[in-house]
């Protein structure tokens, strides 16, 4: 059934400007372009992944004004002007791995790596607000992100290890 706006002419484009990982980025996109597609294809920041496009798997999770959100459930136009942090932005200034990423490597918290960016952003925000979780809290903190490879065991370990690394850095 044909619904929606007419399709026989090019779509209206909207100018969207975001500050992504501290850098001002702009693009011209149709209103229906999701934030996940905008980041990936218009800004070529392909670290954010798309696993389901209906908000359940969490692979697309980015930080919007510092809070985790599903970028597949956001239109780029809606968040025009906002600050976004993606997995690429969770590295340190010199490009080396941040505490959360380093913890994942040490604890073998990733296998195929597809779901990992969503975990990294989620955990980065979580530890900022809850720097000292115990195991059950760590497990619950990541309970909104799906992983098919790891069985979560090493991801939980990564959360705890990241907390430790952050403590050492005096975060």
């Amino acid at each position, binding site marked *: 059934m044909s619904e929606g706006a007419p399709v026989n002419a*090019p779509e209206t484009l909207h100018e969207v400007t975001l500050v992504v990982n501290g850098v001002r980025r702009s693009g011209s996109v149709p209103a229906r372009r999701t934030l996940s597609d905008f980041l*990936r294809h218009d800004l070529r920041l392909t*670290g954010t992944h798309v696993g389901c496009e209906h908000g359940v798997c969490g692979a697309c999770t980015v930080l919007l004004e510092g809070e985790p959100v599903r970028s597949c459930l956001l239109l780029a136009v809606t968040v025009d002007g906002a600050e976004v942090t993606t997995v690429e932005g969770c590295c340190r200034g010199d490009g080396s791995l941040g505490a959360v990423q380093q913890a994942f490597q040490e604890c073998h918290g990733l296998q195929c790596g597809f779901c990992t960016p969503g975990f990294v952003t989620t955990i980065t925000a979580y530890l900022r607000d809850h720097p000292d979780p115990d195991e059950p809290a760590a497990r619950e903190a990541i309970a909104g992100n799906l992983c*098919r*490879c790891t069985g979560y065991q090493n991801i939980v370990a990564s959360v705890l290890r990241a907390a430790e690394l952050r403590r050492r850095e005096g975060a």
Partner: protein
Amino acid sequence: MTTRLFGEPVQRQEDPRLLSGQGRYLDDLGHDALAAAFVRSPHAHARVLDVDVTEALEVDGLVAVYTYEDLEGRVGERLPLLIPHPSLTEPRTAYALARDEVNHVGEAVVMVVARDRYVAEDACDRIRVAYEPLPPVVGVAAARAADRLVHGDVPGNVAAHLVEEVGDARAAIAAAPHVLELDLQVERSASMPMEGRGVYARWDADDRSLRVYSSTQASTSVRAALAAKLGLPLDRVEVIAPDVGGGFGVKIVHPWPEEILVPWAALRLGQEVKWVEDRREHFVASAHERGQLQQVRVGFDDDGRLLGLDVAFWHDNGAYTPYGVIVPIITATQLLGPYKPGAYRCEWWSLYTNTVIVTPYRGAGRPQGVYAMERTMDAIADELGLDRAEVRAGNFIQPEEMPYDQGLLFQDGRPLVYDSGDYPAGLEKLKGLVGWDDFETTRERARAEGRRVGIGLACYVEGTGVGPYEGGWVKVETDGSVVVATGLTTQGQGHQTAFAQIVAAELGVPIERVTVTTGDTRRFRYSVGTFASRAAVMSGNAVGAAARKVRHKALRIAGEALEADPRDLEVVDGEVRVKGVPSASIPLATVAVLSNPLRYAFDEQAKLATQFAGTADLSRPPVPEGEEPGLEATGYYSPPRSTFASGMHAVVVETDPETAEIRVLRYCVVHDCGTLVNPMIVEGQVHGGVAQGVGGALYERMAYDESGQLLNASYMDFLMPYSTEVPHIETDHLETPSPLNPLGIKGAGEAGVIPGMAVFAAAIEDAEGFRISRMPISPSELHDLRLRHAAGEVPPLRRHLRHHDDQEDSG
């Protein structure tokens, strides 16, 4: 300093890239490519009457629309049958785009190519396909009853039928002191990798060559299929598996319709075309697995020893059989597990239904076989009032009986001969780990608190490392770096690290200098693929063999340069040196230069090498007969037969007396995959498999309705476990090396999932006191069973009756 790398939990080389968002998965490539999308059948069974694309042609940004009529030559032929088998007498495969009929919801009918995926879907929305719906066949029972047919010319919906016998099981059962019958059911689930399928094709008109990226487990085979289908010379086609976000079996199928159509469109249009499967498509257009109905008849003696085992099962293979019937073949053979079955008879039928095709999903038929056998073991124990672990132990093949021939042919067409294993030792470890012998105390304590707990255990044997072969190529570059390539693919198993460990250990170089490429036909051309827990065994040994050849050549050349006997040389940290005389050394990099007698010195390495030039034997040509330039070699590993890993799992569950919710209290794994290349990676594989086992036992079920509609084609309703649903996993290892390969390794990729359904059925039944025969089970279904049990429709376990009697006796 070269540390011992083989067997160490080395951190993964691939991680920094993947963790910092620098992965290159299929959709990260080809940003400027055109996008493909498909119109897929909304009906489970229908004739395709007409396709009207008129409205779609108005869509701004549309590039092309293709139906069956547009497909030329071999592209218009049916998809190939990849693995024929004598039992598969009625194979059926689909056309890349439906021709006259569709046989499952999701079957591709029309392909659209457009500026981007949004526009492509707009066009798909406006394509009107006229169908004449036909009555669908849904579910194994309906397929078996065959009141209706999926394919009009396949009687009884039977694609394949096979009987295998070792000894006379029926006679043995007839003569047995005890006989039991079980009716069992396993429901359909699916691999569900986090990344769906995808194909990105680039036709180079100048070069007349095709490059295809596909999120596949078998790039070499996709290449062969494409060359054949598109009529291109093989060496004009390259297929690359980029970073792949999980496979678990579903990406072994090839060629998918999309894998043929997308490159074909790229060729026709002279433009890059990319298709990225979305999640809904993955549910209805990829592949599922697991669904079977099973009947077991077993005869046994007073000690619970198997005398005869007679199994029949009906396997749901979905609408087509492009991958053959490997899954039921594996069920029938791996059902035997670590046991001596006495006489064994297994008869199976693989049936068509109007649902998505069925191809291997991690475990590939083993979970179903283990389910049948382990339910049987539990039933025997209960009948005789014996301990469930004791009954199993009494039936084990003993270590001294290895190698043990089960008298059947395995999935590789070779004899099912277990090479090594120590099942009694594994069971002892597991019992110790979970506290099997003390569990009654735990149960009583729980009972006193009004809680209901149960324990279950399940054992399995897994044939791994199936052939026919894999190959590896190793080269030392003139800067001392080492490049390695193997043809099979990677979906998270850490091959880039594990294979680097093997090569680094063999060559004596720091692992940081070793780079491994997998799944790229430009780098290695002969390969089979990643499946059946074979990658470490096959490619591990192949790259090991190649590395050994390189080392041998390096020592010979170094020996000439150092004027030393190669037998007196060793390689440490990339330096070849005389044992005990570290100053007499030559860098491996320099050996690489010396191995290639060029006239020209391009770089510092070449200049440095000239200091050794005087040692060459001037009576021989620079590249002697039978030799080649370069410090590189190719090696292959081709096993005489599969190697058999094994494992046992135990789980403690708690069921809520009121809400019937099921909670996992403990999950214990003991497993044996021979020598471990990287224990951290192996354990990760086990964890992931266990999580899929939990999912398959308690949450995941493809819910088809009677009209063949998949009711839960989204992550909202197809329930994969989150972290809160997967327990902490306790593991212990056993290592019985394989005598079949130099590294002694066995596969581990599927281990974690294989006994999942069996072990949970056992534990839940132990908690509840009545038999569980169908899996997966939800709280609602458990509640329903409780009511039926209370009403006398579901028989109690004998041991609960006995316990009850004991309790009453003791007052």
